[in-house]
């Protein structure tokens, strides 16, 4: 397809682990249509131009979290990023930063999947409820206290934007800590202490140097940076308490 007004060029990362030693860029021209997203452009390539291009996608409505990629260097959900916003192009489409590249635009997020259970992202109770007899009451205000942190779709854009995670893969990372905060702030949960024990470690909240980019790139306005700073306050209070008070009073 000739490059003209109605098309836009995508510069797409290609990497085949069984052949290539390094990722390379490949150029594709795709129709520039007002309603097309970057993902539509990639699907056009996959269907009509080069069937070997690999990328993840599913819901195409910004909720499943599969299709995160770097678009012109910024982590984006490609199903919610429109080609026309980048006209006349070219548009650089690369795998998310800070993750190992498995293939083309597909990155390995196994590290996050291993980290997630460490912050105990589930309701922890003091009481041992076995028989369910009605709901735990929770007022709209109590719901509001954690609601925003429950909006994380695990799309990994925040990890791609976080230089700390890039430099130190041991760092727990924005989404996992935001989820810990989500459960801590839930009025039904009693597990804050347990989670703090994990996050007070160096790889926990103290790894964060507050770049703040995780919050900037979050497509669901979760504000992981805020969650981490609030955790730091909690952790600092605990440290002071441990230093000042005798053990039995803590």
């Amino acid at each position, binding site marked *: 397809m000739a490059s003209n007004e109605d098309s836009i060029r995508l510069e797409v990362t290609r990497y085949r682990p069984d052949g290539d030693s390094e990722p390379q860029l490949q150029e594709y021209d795709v129709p520039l249509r007002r309603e097309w997203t970057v993902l539509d452009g990639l699907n056009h390539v*996959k269907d009509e131009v080069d069937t070997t291009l690999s990328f*993840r996608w599913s819901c195409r*409505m910004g909720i*499943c*979290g599969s299709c995160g990629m770097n678009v012109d260097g910024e982590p984006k959900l490609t199903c919610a990023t429109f080609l026309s916003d980048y006209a006349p192009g070219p548009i650089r489409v690369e795998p998310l930063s800070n993750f190992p590249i498995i293939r083309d635009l597909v990155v390995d997020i196994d590290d996050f999947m291993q980290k997630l259970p460490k912050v105990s992202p589930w309701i922890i109770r003091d009481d041992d409820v076995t028989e369910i007899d009605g709901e735990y009451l929770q007022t709209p205000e*109590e719901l509001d206290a954690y609601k925003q942190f429950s909006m994380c779709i695990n799309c990994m854009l925040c990890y791609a934007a976080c230089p700390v995670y890039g430099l130190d893969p041991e760092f727990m990372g924005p989404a996992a800590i935001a*989820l810990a905060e989500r459960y801590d702030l839930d009025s039904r949960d009693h597990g804050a202490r347990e989670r703090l024990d994990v996050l007070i470690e160096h790889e926990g909240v103290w790894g964060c140097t507050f770049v703040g980019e995780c919050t900037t790139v979050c497509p669901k306005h979760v504000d992981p940076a805020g969650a981490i700073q609030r955790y730091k306050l909690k952790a600092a209070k605990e440290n002071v308490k441990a230093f000042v008070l005798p053990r039995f009073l803590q």
Partner: protein
Amino acid sequence: MSEGLIRAAHDVLIVGGGAAGLRAAIAIAETDPDLDVAVISKVYPMRSHTVSAEGGAAGVIADDDSIDEHIYDTISGSDWLGDQDAIEAFVNEAPRELLQLEHWGCPWSRQDDGRVAVRPFGGMKKKRTWFAADKTGFHMLHTLFQTTLKYREVKRYDEVFVTRLLHDDDRVHGVVGIGLYSGKIQAVTAKAVILATGGCGKVFPFTTNANINTGDGMGLAYRAGAPLKDMEFVQYHPTGLPFTGILITEATRAEGGWLINKDGYRYLQDYDLGKPTPTPELRSMELGPRDRLSQAFVHEVEKGRTTDSPWGPIVHLDLRHLGADLIDTKLPFVRELCLKYERIDPVHELIPVRPVVHYMMGGVHTDIDGATPLGGLYAAGETACVSINGANRLGSNSLPECLVFGARAGRAAAEFARSAGPTPGVIEAQAADEVRRLERDLLGKESGGESMAAIRGELQATMEDAAGIYRTGPEMAKGIDTLRELQQRIGRVGIADTSRSFNTELLAALELANMLDIGECILQSGLQREESRGAHQRTDFPDRDDEQFLKHQLVYRHRDGTPRVESMPVTITRWPPGERVYGR
């Protein structure tokens, strides 16, 4: 045992990590912690299509509501094709399942006093739909996924695509799957297998369904000899965004939204759905059932009262009178989706909508415990047909269905696995066959001049023409012929991708094979049902015919690959078939 052929052995293996699959996994872990249970899924569990469900989950909890009313609404909604014993079990168990999810942390929207809030929904006579704003499925899925992480004994195989069920004549013994990451093709054996792979909306061109909804579980069961039930019943949701097909939840209408044609007229009043009222009236007008609303749209098109768009005729959904506050608290996702994908703000502008394929009432035939006729094989969620949805599902019944029957299938599969004998040796040969088929016949296969995208496009166009909102016998028969041709042509599709790792081209070829099978089942079943009921409307047989067709249709696969349709009675307990009345 040949090297690496069998990757692992489990007691229960669940295929699919959405609401039904995860609920099953937890049910098993809770029933018997000694059982070895695993979830195998072609995507990470939190990517499953449950995530896209918006409006809510029905369960009787309000003081003025009753179990019998929810049962009756579901039965009449199903046009009396739902099995009443299954519906009774479902309605009875749904509230407890929803409360359980509340205990696991689901952020249900609340009333001021802290109790769970409920909203009205289409075809329901009382307010009984629990909701988490308009991201109910998202919150339910993430709550289930995160809760499952607590059960360390539940093993997970993420991003593994199952290509075949291993089985002998009596029972199932496991699966063969391709690990997308490594490209390795290996068997995972199990004493019981639960299919929970969701729906098959991608058989159609215009659908609310995600890319992953290719009916894999239905295809697996069908090829293993288990029948598919009531496949002709395809639900069109009346309000999808043009072009993308993104769902605009029924909750928009439950909160008071109006459907208007190009003259600004609330056209549903012309279709025996009641009289327009300023505030929503239950089981009336915009809160009628989905089948009737989608059918009304077609009549509006015929009358020339719709608006033309580049993507066909549309009507409009009017939320402007609801105000920004209500929209932001109860329908924030709808506003977000409209702003993003239509560049309009529903607070001030009309939302263009058209009916869009949304849900499969049919699926793998199971009994009330999720058991299929093949020993050790279970199914739950949209993959399965129990059936509680009959000829038309009511909005907000599918999420609790995943929970109730996911848990039931889990417990039944656990029970089966405890008493099942060991895996016979012959299974290994079957696994080896499948590995050979994939390695030799598919990987790096030369093209015979056919393109996968073209065949998929033709399948989808054929399905839309032959199995749309209104159908005729000749159209369906012609559609079946076209699909047979496509079955031949798919043999000439090449796979240019020779990489092992993340070979999504190979994946798409296997998915397309499933979709062709399912498309054929839908048409064959539809051709044989010579009546109009619920979502199956035939212009050549416009009336419901209880005499001949108050029955389920089961599609079996012949050895030559063609479908064979048999029938089975509908279970009636307390509610004899009656007229479906809305709005009066």
